[in-house]
């Protein structure tokens, strides 16, 4: 063997190949007896090695495969197809995974988040598209049934669509999880006081008072409470106090004018009695 190694490189190569095949056969038998190979595998591999070894030993120099003459145009066609498919797939992946610039459409999960949809429901509501707002908010509530802001907005929509019962139910749901939710307390009170039933109205006033006791930053509860004080309780002093509190809280100009007018009216009515 040593002699062979030292002979020409081609000979060395063949010898090495032969050595390797012999070694592989030994290995194979060891592995088979170890149980690493099952009988089937062992047999196929042994036959294969044996055949290769025999072929080599017979020194059949040209065991190369006759390379099948390929139609080179068809070959190119295939390459083209693969390239096109590859680039298209790559482009698709880039489009679905890459970072988007602002303003690009299809901003993925973001626009579908309940919070975002709630915002669009709010804008629809303020634009007085009650049907549209209700459609959106119902979708939001289906995905996030516990979301308090959504519940409150939904109640607002119901109230505007003169369905006070549904509104109250949803507000109660909010208050169950967040007993100090000012918006819910205010709206609940406001709905209740307008139902012509003394007990219910008292409950409504209690609700409004609770909202005010939390010292909200918005003006709504004060306006409502003032309204109640003036129209239901005839308590002008409390009404004026409430309206003034509302004025302190930066209401829109139209309301400011209206409130100032009412306050003046009430004070002028009060004055004679006071004197």
């Amino acid at each position, binding site marked *: 063997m040593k002699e062979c190694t030292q002979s020409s490189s081609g000979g060395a190569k063949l010898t090495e190949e*032969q050595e390797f095949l*012999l070694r592989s*056969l*030994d290995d194979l038998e060891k592995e088979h007896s170890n149980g690493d190979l099952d009988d089937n595998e062992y047999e196929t591999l042994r*036959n*294969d090695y*044996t*055949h*290769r*070894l*025999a*072929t080599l*030993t*017979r020194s059949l120099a040209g*065991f190369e*495969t006759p*390379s*099948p003459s390929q139609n080179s145009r068809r070959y190119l066609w*295939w390459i083209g197809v*693969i*390239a096109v*498919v*590859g*680039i298209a*797939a*790559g*482009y698709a*992946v*880039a*489009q679905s*995974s*890459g*970072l*988007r*610039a*602002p*303003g*690009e459409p299809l*901003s*993925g*999960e*973001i*626009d*579908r*988040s*309940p*919070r*975002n949809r709630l*915002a669009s429901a709010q804008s629809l509501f303020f634009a007085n598209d009650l049907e549209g707002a209700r459609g959106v908010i119902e979708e939001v509530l289906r*995905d*996030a049934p516990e979301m308090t802001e959504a519940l409150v907005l939904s109640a607002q929509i119901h109230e505007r669509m003169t369905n006070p019962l549904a509104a109250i139910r949803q507000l109660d749901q909010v208050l169950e999880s967040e007993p100090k939710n000012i918006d819910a307390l205010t709206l609940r009170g406001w709905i209740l006081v307008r139902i012509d039933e003394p007990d219910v109205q008292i409950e409504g006033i209690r609700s409004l008072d609770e909202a005010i006791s939390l010292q909200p930053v918005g003006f709504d509860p004060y306006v409502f409470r003032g309204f109640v004080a003036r129209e239901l309780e005839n308590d002008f002093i409390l009404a004026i106090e409430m309206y003034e509190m509302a004025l302190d809280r930066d209401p829109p100009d139209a309301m400011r004018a209206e409130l100032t007018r009412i306050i003046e009216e009430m004070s002028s009515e009060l004055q004679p009695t006071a004197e």
Partner: protein
Amino acid sequence: MKQRHWISWFCIALVSSLALVAASVADDPPATEAERAYEIKATMLCPVCDGQNVLESNAPVAAAIRAQVDELVSEGRSDAEIRAWMARQYGKDVNANPPRTGIGSLIWIVPVFVAVASTGFLVFAFRKWRVGRGSELSDDDVTIVSSLREPT
């Protein structure tokens, strides 16, 4: 015997696909503001700390970005707007996700292209290799080999 295998395979396939469907249904996209902010912070790199993201880094600038992301999210800005704002302030390399357009999109396209092309190449190679020499074992082979192996 064979019949029973088909039944077992059918059961396995059924159970697996049901499990996978259940798994993908249970997975929901970020819903709350906190989850959105978390996503943004996790995919934004801290500009001074070499590869750590804003969520994990305790560098002051990361804290600043975190606070601002929370702020912007609660203002109702979209993810894309927030990312664009941070990229304007700190450079495009605060975004850990490469863009999908322009030259940056190559990083998505090239690997997919390579994958498709190399799979295609392998399919060709298989076809070529298959036309290999027949390797039926003859008795002659066995005698040659056994004579070779005897000395060792």
